[in-house]
């Protein structure tokens, strides 16, 4: 793949990327979130068309317009979210869409071939089982066999180990080795350093859509890879404020919770947030950040452990109650959980308090109260909008976030949890949001900022914790944070660095 460039709106996902894969090689593709790893591979698999650049497969220049073309060229991709049909059997899922001669399904011979492949690559699977009854690991094996069944030469795996247990991980690596021996070549997208070191022959590191470098795994080290992965770009940073002596406002004690695929994703996570501080949660997406935010906000059931806010237990309480006790939550998908798009600013602003007497009488909502409140917010938060009755979907990303923040902050909360608050915003809006967070911290609010953008954490937070596979691996003051160690920790290398726990 030469000079691949692709833009989504004004965001450049891949910027003139060169990537090559040798026959019989496991090639790691490493990078932080938003580095463009998955986008690059989606282009190879024909899901996206690049704006520029060309793809050469087995020596010939080709254009891949759809997954179908990719499969013809022998390229298959196992997505992070499996593409399977739960009520159908393993065999049916595998052979769907295959060019077949006969009219009738030939399940028998398909099953024979599946068992043969399973044998050959050490993937134990029962062709007759229905997907719905399979564990996540087994489902992944079905996805892999689905690719192998189509006699492919190149297999792309997108964050394959994110849902696997350690043993399943080992089994997967063994399978990859046997595949490579049979002449297959594998591209392995990950953010976990130890995986890259263990499984790949060569590694390409991406950051911000650009290739930082391609190295042979054997002659590089995890810290070097981490440095390439994380890199450093200094934005003017906010003066961190010591908060050691402030009392704790929010404590999580060995909290465990499941993710949407019913896999245990938060594993006895403990965390302490203090009043008047901004605690950043660093880590690569998919390590339990969303589950952490939802558990605090009451949107996800806590399996074990407890959460205490301002010494009242809020474990598994209703979101509305937690909110009344003083939690403010700005969710990651602001357009889905946070706001209602075809509502006006005024209506969105009272979404969390419409039942309060302040805003609704016996029967009718108090229109003037709503208008007053909306106008106050628009001025306080400098929201650029033609009017308060304009549907929110005509606002820019930045303004949307301001409206959402305004609503949450208007309840002058004790704890403010924000998840990727500045994702997809322009610089101006990002700085504005950061100023607001600092303002809250200064008047005593405990701010928990979960962000995929390490630089953002390093510029704003007083303290930061790194989350990896559903656990807090280390907490430190921002002053003594060192980017390389954080990179390693995000990649799964535990506490090699010198500093202890604060």
């Amino acid at each position, binding site marked *: 793949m030469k000079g691949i460039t692709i833009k989504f*709106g004004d965001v450049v996902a891949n910027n003139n990327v060169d990537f090559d894969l040798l026959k019989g090689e496991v090639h790691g593709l490493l990078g932080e979130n938003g580095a463009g790893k998955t986008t690059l591979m989606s282009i190879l698999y024909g899901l996206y068309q690049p704006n520029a650049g060309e793809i050469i497969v087995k020596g010939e220049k080709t254009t891949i317009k759809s997954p179908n073309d990719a499969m013809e060229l022998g390229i298959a991709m196992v997505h992070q979210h499996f593409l399977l049909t739960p009520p159908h059997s393993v065999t049916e899922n595998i052979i769907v869409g295959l060019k077949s001669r006969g009219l009738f399904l030939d399940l028998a011979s398909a099953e024979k071939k599946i068992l043969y492949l399973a044998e050959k690559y050490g993937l134990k699977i029962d062709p007759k089982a229905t997907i719905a009854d399979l564990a996540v690991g087994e489902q992944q094996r079905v996805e892999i066999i689905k690719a192998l069944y189509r006699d492919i030469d190149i297999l792309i795996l997108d964050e394959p180990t994110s849902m696997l247990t350690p043993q399943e991980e080992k089994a997967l690596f063994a399978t990859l080795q046997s595949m490579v021996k049979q002449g297959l070549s594998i591209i392995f997208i990950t953010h976990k350093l130890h995986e890259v070191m263990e499984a790949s022959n060569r590694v390409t590191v991406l950051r911000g859509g650009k290739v930082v470098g391609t190295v042979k795994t054997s002659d590089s080290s995890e810290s070097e890879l981490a440095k390439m992965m994380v890199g450093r770009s200094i934005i003017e940073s906010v003066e961190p404020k010591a908060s050691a002596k402030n009392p704790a406002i929010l404590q999580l004690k060995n909290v465990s919770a499941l993710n949407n695929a019913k896999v245990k994703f938060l594993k006895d996570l403990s965390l302490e947030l203090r009043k008047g501080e901004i605690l950043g949660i660093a880590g690569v997406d998919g390590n339990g950040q969303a589950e952490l935010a939802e558990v605090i906000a009451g949107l996800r059931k806590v399996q074990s452990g407890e959460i205490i806010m301002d010494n009242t237990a809020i474990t598994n309480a209703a979101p*509305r109650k937690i909110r009344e006790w003083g939690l403010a939550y700005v969710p990651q998908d602001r357009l889905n959980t946070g706001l209602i*798009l075809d509502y006006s600013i005024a209506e969105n602003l009272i979404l969390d308090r419409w039942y309060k007497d302040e805003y*609704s009488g016996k029967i*009718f909502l108090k229109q003037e109260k709503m208008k007053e409140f909306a106008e106050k917010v628009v001025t306080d938060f400098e929201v650029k909008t033609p009017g308060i009755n304009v549907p929110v979907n*005509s606002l*820019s990303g930045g303004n*949307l976030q301001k409206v959402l923040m305004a609503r949450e902050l208007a309840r002058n909360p004790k704890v403010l949890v924000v998840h990727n608050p500045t994702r997809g915003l322009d610089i101006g809006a990002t700085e504005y949001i950061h100023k607001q967070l600092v303002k809250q911290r200064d008047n005593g609010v405990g701010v928990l900022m979960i962000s995929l953008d390490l630089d953002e954490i390093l510029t704003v937070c007083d303290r930061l914790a790194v989350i990896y596979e559903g656990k807090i691996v280390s907490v430190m003051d921002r002053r003594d944070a060192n980017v390389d160690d954080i990179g390693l920790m995000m990649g799964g290398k535990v506490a090699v660095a010198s500093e202890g726990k604060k």
Partner: protein
Amino acid sequence: MSVLDVVTQTRNKLRDVKFFVPFASASLAFVVGAIILGATGVDVGKAYTIMFEGAFGSAFGFGDVLLKTTSLLLTGLAVSVAFRCKQWNIGAEGQLYMGALGGTLVGISVVGLIPGLAIFLGIILSFIFGAVFALVPAVLKVKFGVNEVISTVLLNFVAFLFISFLLHGPIKAPGFNPYSPEIGNASQMPIIFPGTRLHAGIIVAALATVGVYYLWKTKIGFEIKSVGANIKAARYAGMNITKSVLVTLAISGGLAGIAGGMLVSGVQHVLIEGISPGYGFIAVIIALLGRQHPIGVAIVAFFFSVLMTGSETMYRSLGVPSAFSMTLQALVLVFVLVGQLFVVWLGKRKVGGAR
């Protein structure tokens, strides 16, 4: 929303081309209709002039248009309330019949003779009967997860058969026809335009329109609207989804019930089997085309009433089969649906996705 806001909103709505597409699509439907009419050997020009003459030409004709608008508006509002909360209520026809039953029971009882109270109580009971009948699919959905599209469609037929049973047995009036006894004249809606059949029901329909307009301004209205717009955000905001579903379908059923009550007390003065020529089904189309806004529903309801009354006149004087009006309504729906998608496609292309 202050008057200024309303004015600005409608002004830029008019400027915005989106506003004209539905009318262009409707006229396109008439063109295709003309082709079909031509094929039946009818002089199309004359047919369409008679059609509009029938609707607007005479006071009697226009009275009939408003009469049909009353029924279509009430059932249209009923379905639009349900759709606003994403509850697909296709059972307005059955709820209308139950409402008609409620109105009749008041009419034929002793209460039916007390002026003022009879009509008032008649409307209340129609609302209650319609609402309760709509609660059946609501509870089925909330408690057993039964898809309301299927349950409401099927319950329509259960309602027709139940009413037919009553009219052949328990509430059949002595004498010739399988009708209910005549309702007391205190519960008969007064004709407001002498010489036409238009009764005060049109006022009830207007009040209902205003009512629904303000419903969305009430506390429960806001909750219903939010559950419909984005159920995830609503759930996070702590809104009670079950309550919203039940209240929405109750209101929806109730409004359809009132439409039934009006048909009995305003038009027929007795309950008969074929009381509604399918107003409940056309209401679904009106709610969709009216884009679930009370004023939009009113405009579309009026348009369809003109269509239906006009085709009746065409049938009477030119022998154009009544099936033509059904075909024309279907064509209008198809073309406007295509038009709506054309607008959405337009929107996407022009704005390029703001967020």
